[in-house]
Structures are given as C-alpha cells and as structure tokens.
C-alpha cells in the first residue's frame, strides 16, 4: 500500500508541491498505477517477444536543422542558473 508519506517523499524528489487536500486522491492514484504495473507478473512469458510488441520499425527523421529554443526558455525550468548555464550547487 502506498502511504501519504511515500507520496510526499516522491513529490519532494520531483520538486513538486502537493496540497494537503489532494493527498488522498494522489495516494490512491499512485496505488492504482503500481497495481497496474504489477499485472505484468501474471503474464505468461513463453513465446512472447516483449522487446517489440508493436512490431513497428524505422520511424526516422531527416537530417535538417530546425532553430533551437531561446536560451531563456530552455533555462526557465532550472532551479539555479548562472552565465547562461544550468547550475548545480556544491552539496553542503
């Protein structure tokens, strides 16, 4: 069972804030997701090629340059920036 504490811990690692009133719903959703992933354990492994179940191949792209994003936009999600770089602070 996923607990409130688990959800808060994961949210903190992902730098997300979850308001108190959403905790119940989020915990249940997380629990459902993990249970869903667990169903794979019940599948028969014989003769199944899990590697390429959709049998698709060769979704290629042509080698043509498209302008990149503005740096401001690229850096806009960063925790810390300096001189146009993402900044990873020394851990104390």
């Amino acid at each position, binding site marked *: 069972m996923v607990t409130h504490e688990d959800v808060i811990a994961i949210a903190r690692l992902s730098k997300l804030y979850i308001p108190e009133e959403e905790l119940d719903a989020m915990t249940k959703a997380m629990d459902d997701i993990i249970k869903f992933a667990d169903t794979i354990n019940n599948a028969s492994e014989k003769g199944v090629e899990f*590697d*390429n179940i*959709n*049998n*698709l*191949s*060769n*979704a*290629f*792209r*042509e*080698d*043509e*340059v*498209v302008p*990149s*994003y503005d*740096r401001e936009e*690229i*850096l806009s*999600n960063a925790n810390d920036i*300096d*001189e*146009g*770089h*993402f*900044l*990873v*602070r*020394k851990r104390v």
Partner: protein
Amino acid sequence: MKYEMVAGFETHIELATNTKIFCSCTTQFGGDPNTHCCPICIGLPGTLPKLNKQVIKYAIMAGLATNCEIANISKMDRKNYCYPDLPKAYQISQYDKPLCEHGYVQLSSGKKIRLTRIHIEEDAGKLIHKRGDTYVDYNRGGVPLIEIVSEPDIRSVEEAKEYVEKLQQIMRFIGISDCKMQEGSMRCDVNISVRPEGSDKLGTRTEIKNMNSITFIGRAMEYEFQRQVDLIESGGQVEQQTLRYDDATNTTSSMRGKEDANDYRYFRDPDLVTISVTDEEIDELRKQIPELLFQKAERYVQQFGMNEKDAANISKYRRIAEFFEEASEGVKTPKNVSNFIIGQIFRRLETEDDKEKFDISITAQQLRELVKLIDDGKVKNNLAKSTLEKMLDTGKSVTEFITESDMAGMDEGMLAELCKKAVEANPKAVSDYKAGKVKALKSMVGFVMKESRGKADASAAEAKILELIG
C-alpha cells in the same frame, strides 16, 4: 621477467551530421552555452526522441569501412546513470543489438586489430567545475556518436598509436567525422593490462578514460604499463579501476574503483522503434564507400611505380588523392604529378587541416596540362617548376606563362649558337675550367639556360660547351 602489454580501445567519434541524434538542433561546435537546445535534448518529460536517418547511414558506413557485419535488426537501449551531464539520467545507447559487429582494422605490419562492435549513442553535455559548483552546457548533449570497441589485440604503444591514427584516417576519408581530437570529436578510453611474455592469460586491467591526443595516449599507456609491472614485481596486485590521465604530471590517478562500478540497468528504450536495415540498403551504402587510402596507396605503388612513402603521402587525404588521380589521367608520367604535389603544392599547405581542406588555386586539369607539356618534351622540368609556382600564385593556366614559341623547343643549331655565345661571353669561366675548376662549367650552362629562358636541355648544353672548349 619480461612483461607484455595487452590493450584494447573504446573510441568515441562524433558524426558529422547537421542535426543531433534525436532532435533537430544543430550539432555545430561552440556557440553560446545552451543555445543549441530544445525540450528533447534537455530531457524534459513528455518529449519524444526521433532517430536521425543520417546517423544510421554514417554508422553503417563506418562499419563497412572497418570490415564489420551490419545487423539487419537493431534497437536502442537506455543506459542509466545519474550525473548532471545527462539531463534524463540515462543515455540512449545500444546494448545487446549494436548496428555493426565483428570487424577489424589492419595495421601496416599486416596484423588485424579485431573490432568487437560499433554502436550509436548520444553524447553528454559539457560540465565546467567552478568554485565547487558545476556549470552545465547541453549544446553537445544529443550530438550523435559512434563507439568503436576493439578486442584486446594491441601489444605495444606503437600499435596503439597506429590503430588510432588508422581509425581517424578511415573515418575522415569516408567523410563521416572530422575526428578532431583537440575539439573532442574523437576520444579514446584504453583498457590495459600486463602479463608475463608468452602467457596467454589476461591480467587484471585498468581503464584510462577520455584521452584526446595520440601523444597523450602513448605516454599514458607507457606510464600505466610501467606502473602495473612495478606493482607486480614488488609483490603487489593490480586493482581493477578507472583512471584519469593527467598530461601535466604524466601520471594516472584513480577516478573510481571496482566496488563502485556502475550497474547501468540497461533496458530497451520504449520511445524508439526497432531499426531495420535491408541487404539492399547496405549494398547501396557499400557503393558509397570510396576506395580507402591504404588501398589507394597500394595501387599507386603497383600502377604508377611510386615509392611507398610518396604513395602514402598522396593517398592520406581524400581531396589530394582525388586531385592526383584526376591530374594523372592520360599523362605518361604520374610520377611528375606526385612530385609536383609533394614538392611544390605541399609547401603551401602547412597544417594537417590545410591538407585536409586542400584549398589551392589551380584545378587538376591545369596541372595535367603542365605535366603533358613535359611528357611531350616541350617544357623542361626547371621551367615547369617555376611555371607551376606562378600558376599557384595566380590560379592561371600554363599557357599564360609559357608561349607557343617557348614550347617550340630548341633545335641543334640554336643550341650550338647559344653555347658558342656562352663560351665567348665568359673567357674567365673558360680559363677557370681549364685550370681545373669544374664549377666554372656550370656557370656557362647557366648562361645558356638563362638565354634560352629555360628551354634548353641542360645536359645537352653541357656536352656542347665541353665540345667547344675541349
């Protein structure tokens, strides 16, 4: 006891595509930090990587040029590790189904260095460490790489250097990478161990990471070989570890030991579908591989009677080789063409880079015209040489500098007349020669050459003068 070096290479080479491997950002070197980036190459959630077709082509060409088998089916995998140069916390690479396998590179001794595999993957971003903090630039992140993994077939520093040089030359020749080690578009990791000579067991190996110059590779390997030998000789044991080479002190130091060796938890990247290449497509690419430099060199020796050194010099750079071949078409003396290239044209191309670019002012056809005049006996070698200099200075053709009357050559009578004139005009030279100064003869021949504007045949003139004063 005598020890033997056992070494293998992992070589990363950046492919010369226009765009990154999974997005359409430019791969251009340099640029302000984080200006060649988009949500895909900075690893934002919800983005979908899409494989660049050219990467597959170039990687297959690299495989074909190094005698690899090309896989009809391959796939991309995630290699998980957590470090700021990887924004997704995994690198998209290939694990158990690489594009190319079982190739080799042949050294000049004839020995083959076997290649285990060549796979494609994305490059990481660049980290700059300042005041304890880390500055991250993702411009390089997502630039396509091939990693060429060799078997531990290398036994000496000389073999290692030749192997790296050969790889560099091959990849440049087929045009898939500029392989500039100083700019990081070619980087080598070396696995190295030692064993008593004659033993067929492998010792414990260490890995020296990320070297970007052939000289440093040589020094690092020498240092590491000696360090391991000394350790064993003094009763110690080599520890499996990853090393960093410091070129300032010429020593290696430990980056990490075996105990924190990474478990990369490879698994198939679910965002990228299977890569399938048909035999027809592989054959099509095989046709695009030019005759390689070593094959060219061999042919030049056999076909044109060139010496091995000249043949190697001409064939080393693709543009020069092509220029040489075009200029030699239909001439009687390809040797003259190669002499002009190595002698006069190389003097104008100082750096490796200059030779690679081969930016000169005349065309192959213009050089061919000049050499044909020598073939036909219309122009003497000395005159041809000075004319070539003028052609190279101006980009103009030979007819701009040598007129029809210059080419008419000299008949016997004209030569005899000029020689007579030389003898009459230089009484001192005549008496000097008669007094035993052999050099004086040369000055009279020089007079004839000058008067004839280079048209006269120097040895014929010499004979004639001797006859006159004899």
